[in-house]
């Protein structure tokens, strides 16, 4: 029977063609001379993304610290109470932002591991990828602590937690084993020898928190390596490091090269600005009126400190100079309808005033900005390396070295030099210098201030120094154990 003959033929294996993408096989078979660069770009593409967006690593680091909050304005920003919990340190393992942050990091780890498996022989690429992976693990160790170590040699089923000390060792080894193979360049958007040194400085700074054993001398040595390289210097204008066109900054060591058109994900104008601020900056989209700084933190700046311009406060105007009027300002808001950002926030929830709170203005909002900024985001900058050196020295009881370093930072901010330096002063100086650069949480933990009460937050328990392993990840991988206390 004819149909039967065809029938036998019909059910043979069919090859699925892909018309608008590539498969792992296509990539393996490619001999395009740009392939290595494209693969590199692919790895960095994973890192650039939504790091600086809402619900991201940046969000959980900032909102849980005493630098920022997202006040609830009636129904607006209630959002199931997630951001109130984040501020009050009462978060649980199911917060969406934790899972987003985790998945962001581990998707990058997976992509990098696949590249390492596929191209074991391209040494320069491999070294760079392994250090890039270590960078991702630095976010993981800081936020979640006891995370699984997955590298290109991992096999088998569900990965299990490593201890935070093991993760520390893995990061340290990844950087040290590969540093010699890294390029000598001083590009800010990719990993090079000095980036690796700067990463080590940051890692050792928190060694005490991560492993129980401080490594101040190692931190200082790594910071010195960067300083002595002569490749970086403090920008005379602090804000040049955060401007829309900051790729020429002499201070930024490693940045996420955001681009509003091609590499989006840094959504700060939407996250912090008032709805009406759209007219101030001629923004392409209406902002969400969310993130604001705490009054106490704002007040930690001296009025003459140039860095106080990191905040938007006071009367707000449209780009044509007319005063902005918020007709929906709350009836009991003493500032009334003319839009004025006040450092004071009347309450965290449920009825914060719409215009309350100093806004994050450290990163330039260019006129006509989109919801994603063009400003490259500095993950590590020379100013921080100097502060690492200062702190490492001070903790090793070398106050002169520490003072010399910290006064460079103060001088640039038009602040008088310190003649003596306490740890608390250094902590405060770090806060002023590093505002909105996602280091405040680690600093508060390292300086023992994390569990103390602050505005709208009572004292929290020690286990809150680690975020929980996201519940979704435990659901997907039952071999994962939750962090203690959760």
């Amino acid at each position, binding site marked *: 029977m004819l149909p039967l003959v065809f029938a036998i033929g019909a059910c043979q294996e069919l090859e699925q063609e892909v018309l608008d993408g590539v498969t792992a096989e296509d990539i393996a078979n490619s001999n395009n001379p740009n392939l290595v660069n494209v693969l590199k770009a692919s790895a960095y593409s994973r890192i650039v993304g939504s790091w600086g967006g809402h619900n991201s690593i940046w969000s959980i680091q900032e909102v849980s610290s005493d630098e920022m909050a997202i006040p609830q304005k009636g129904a607006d920003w209630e959002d199931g109470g997630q951001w109130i919990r984040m501020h009050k340190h009462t978060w649980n393992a199911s917060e969406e932002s934790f899972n987003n942050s985790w998945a962001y990091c581990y998707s990058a780890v997976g*992509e990098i591991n696949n590249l390492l498996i596929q191209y074991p022989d391209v040494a320069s690429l491999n070294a760079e990828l392994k250090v890039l992976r270590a960078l991702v693990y630095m976010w993981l160790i800081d936020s979640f602590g006891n995370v699984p170590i997955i590298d290109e040699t991992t096999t088998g089923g569900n990965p299990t937690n490593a201890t935070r000390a093991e993760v520390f060792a893995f990061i340290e080894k990844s950087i040290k084993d590969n540093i010699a193979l890294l390029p000598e360049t001083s590009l800010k958007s990719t990993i090079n020898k000095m980036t690796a040194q700067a990463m080590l400085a940051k890692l050792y700074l928190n060694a005490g928190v991560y492993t129980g054993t401080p490594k101040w001398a190692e931190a200082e040595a790594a910071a010195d390596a960067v300083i002595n390289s002569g490749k970086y210097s403090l920008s005379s204008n602090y804000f040049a490091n955060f401007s829309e066109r900051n790729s020429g900054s002499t201070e930024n060591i490693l940045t996420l090269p955001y681009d509003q058109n091609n590499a989006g994900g840094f959504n700060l104008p939407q996250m912090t600005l008032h709805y009406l601020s759209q007219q101030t900056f001629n923004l392409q989209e209406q902002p969400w009126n969310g993130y604001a700084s705490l009054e106490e933190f704002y007040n930690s700046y001296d009025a003459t400190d140039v860095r106080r311009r990191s905040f938007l406060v006071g009367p707000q105007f449209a780009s044509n100079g007319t005063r902005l009027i918020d007709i929906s300002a709350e009836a009991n808001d003493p500032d009334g309808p003319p839009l004025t950002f006040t450092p004071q926030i009347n309450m965290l929830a449920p009825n914060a005033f719409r215009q309350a709170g100093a806004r994050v203005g450290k990163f330039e909002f260019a006129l006509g900005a989109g919801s994603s900024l063009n400003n490259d985001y500095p993950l590590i900058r020379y100013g921080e390396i100097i502060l690492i050196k200062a702190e490492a020295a001070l903790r090793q009881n070398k106050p002169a070295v520490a003072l010399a370093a910290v006064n460079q930072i103060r001088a640039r901010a038009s602040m008088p030099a310190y003649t003596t330096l306490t740890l608390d002063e250094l902590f405060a100086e770090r806060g002023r210098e590093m505002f909105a650069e996602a280091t405040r949480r680690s600093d508060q933990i390292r300086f023992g201030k994390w569990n103390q009460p602050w505005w709208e937050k009572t004292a929290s328990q020690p286990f809150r120094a680690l975020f929980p392993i996201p519940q979704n990840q435990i659901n997907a991988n039952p071999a994962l154990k939750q962090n203690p206390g959760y």
Partner: protein
Amino acid sequence: MRNYLPKLKSLMLAVVLMIGTIAVANAQSRSISGTVLDARLGDPVPGATVLVKGTTRGTATDLDGKFTLPLQAGDQVLVISFVGYLNQEVEIGNQSSITIRLEEDIQSLEEAVVIGYGSQDKKEITSAVVGVKPEDFNRGNVTNPAQLLQGKVAGLSITRPGGSPNSGFNVRLRGLSTFGANSSPLIVLDGVIGASLENVDPNDIQSIDVLKDGSAAAIYGARGSSGVILITTTKKGSKEGTTNVNINSFTTLDQATNLIPVLSAEEFVARGGTDFGSDTDWRDELIDDALSFTTNASVSGSFGNSNYMASVNYRDNNGIVNGVGNERLNTRLNLAQGALNNRLRLNVNLSFTNVDSEDINGAAFRYATIYNPTAPVFEDTESAINRFGGYFQRDLFDFYNPVALARQQKFIGETKTALVSYRAEFDILPNLTLSAQYSQDRRNTLSGAFWSLQDFQVGIGATGSAQRNTFDRKQRIFESTLRYETDLSDKLNMTLLGGFGLQYTTNQGFNARVRQYLFDLGWNNLGAGAIRVGNNTDVSSFANQDQLNSAFGRANFNWDNTFFVSASVRAETYSGFGANNQTGVFPAFSVGSDFTQIFDMGVFNQFKPRVSYGVTGNLPPSPTLALGVFGNGNRIDLDGDPLTQSDIFVGINQFSNPNKDLKWETKKEFNVGVDFGLLNGKITGSVDYYTRNISDLLFNVPVAAGAPNPFDPGRFNTAGSTWVNLADLRAAGFEFVTSVNQIGKGALKWSPTVNFTIYDKTTIESLSNGELGFEELRFATPGAPGQNNNPIIYNRVGQNLGDIYGPRLNGLTESGQYILSTTDPNEFEKLGNGLPKGEFGFANSLMWGQWNLNFFFRGAWGHDLYNSYRGFYENGDPGSNTWNSVITDKTPTNPLVTSSPTFNSSYVEDASFVRLDNMELGYNIKTNSPNLGSLRVYLAAQNLFTITNYTGIDPEVRTNDSENGDAFTSALSPGIERRNTYFQTRSFTLGVTVNFK
């Protein structure tokens, strides 16, 4: 698969002629003469039997339908009968001439039921298959073939919440059979599998057959899980040797109905809302009564071995909101020609449809309800004129003038659908037929979108933006079958069918969007947009293709019209399955027996219990899911210097994890039913009970990000989720339908049909596969402002799919604050379920002389809806006063709710309803013209009234979440009425149908 109709007809004719001869031989002095006509068409009925009741004396009508019958003393009543018509009895009295109009016997015409790859006598059917004829279709302005069946078939749920003429219908057969994109039944149009519904105009449909159970649908294998709807278009004239010209033209008036009550301007200000000094009824500003026009014209004829039907259908449908509507032109040509003494038959079906549609931003419906009633539409200030084109706008969160929104944004689409299908059949032997069919179905959509320079929502930020995109789909199918029928003994008949099929599908499209215009040129000049990268811009394209090969066979046995057995199997190989699982096999078996052939069943003339079991499948939603295709990552400038461009690369990132084991979903369905007929077919009906187990559902499950991928050994997960086959669902249901054919007194005839379904709602038995999976899946947050985080639909293992969870409202404090049972999402209670416990339809057809009246009720019960309007806009807290408030019967007024809106039990309402869905009053004008076959005028109304306690827009069942664009989770969040729902409409249609001969 034998059609007994022709045989019966010839037998009847022979009997009639014989009787006629006898009658003539006994001619007596008194006689009666008359004419027998078709009541509907007015055509003569030749060959009809005219008998004197209680005797064997009678005659047959001639070619003109005329007869003369000698009478004897005592003859009182004539019985007129003919195959395909209802018997009619006529008092003789003193009449010597009489005209009899025979009504078509609808039940009898239904005898042949279309099943996959052929048709079968209804009495032989052993699975749950329902045929629906045009007489039973819904009335009024029906633009979509699915709408014809709404409420007509037990277990077939067809919904379109709101009244937008551009929305499609959600079609579900026997509840949910998959989470995925293919939750609607497979459409088979004149044998073309998976054809677009756009290809066919409702006016050209001859019959629709629904394959309800797994056994019937299994012949369509991996595409049959959601059931199959077979649509057959008209292919020939209504009578041999004639040409028919049919023209049907109607006008429809649409009006908005059931608008949610809101505060007046004064009440709004009294409650603390900002007073802008005007008094505007925003919905009034947006809504207008709309007129739509439709004309269908067709020519059909049958001459020997040639049959044809050609039609043109034009529909101009306008929505009640200016800027919403569509214009549709559908043309069709069906040709059939026999050759070699009709041993070789060629069929050509061609159709072309063009639909031009326009739409507005759906948010305009929400703002029209809740925008500040004291705001004017226009404002005569320099700023308003310069910035907003004169429209009143204010910089507030989520606050856009609905009239401006509807006018300053535009969305259009032009869809061209063409279906060509060729089928050749050749009788190798009288009982051995080879057939081959090739079809190509193409659907090309060109869309445009436009945001004016002065559009406050998007246009101002983007300084004007416009978009063009295309989506083209092409499906080619080649199928060939061989059919063999034989009598194995004098009592046992066997039919065998075998075949194979090849199907290729290609999808492709591109999208371009730019911004920053100087003039509002829109999509006609994208080059005028200065900015072509970044926010509100896009340049992209996509394409994919797949192949599906099938082989299938079926055997049917009929033993003495008493026992019936059917068995089938289909094997399918799909390119989109994972390399480790490329071929699925889908068997089915069914058996039935007509007990009236064995036992004396009294009033029953049919009592056929049947049992069936079948396995069907569902394909993955995209053919490349198994592969983990690399997509475009960010564009990375490797040296960070924007001035050097040779080092800028687009990252290639694997955004989905490969799964080499990916395969079809499997549904196993068991069905037991009885078809019955009583009182000689006066009452017919059927009862069905089914249970279905669905397993290996395709689902994108969270996996350990970065961990080794078990479905692609040696590589790591680069995405947080993988498409995996998992989960088990169980569902069951009971279906009942019964019709009574023409009861009544004298000329008044009433034919009611009732159908209902009782669902045993889908239970989630598991959401896992090994270690992967979930105990619970939560979906659907109420949304912005402020209710973005807590999903309200929990799908829990062991529970029903789509349960609504939230805190219970235990009352209000004196100051109007919520007293909620909990704020912890893990302690939320089950508050309801969006899927119905049952659905019903109640159709009535009344005839009285030339008049006919059809009215149809339908409804659903036992389903809940989250009323989003109440959930966001009935509270009186200061934050809520930016917007107007709704004041439904269920809105607390003393005290007003003063908390910020938070989802709770009070917003979940029982949405059971009964609706007078449509009714039609028609009148057949008597005509004696030789050219005019019939002339009918009718007045129809749709959605006349709804009885419900629900206080939202439309109590219609929501099977999907309209704000969840992910086809794979949308079905997991039923029961939410979103705020952008189009207003309900009520329609009145006046039409005329003319038939020329």
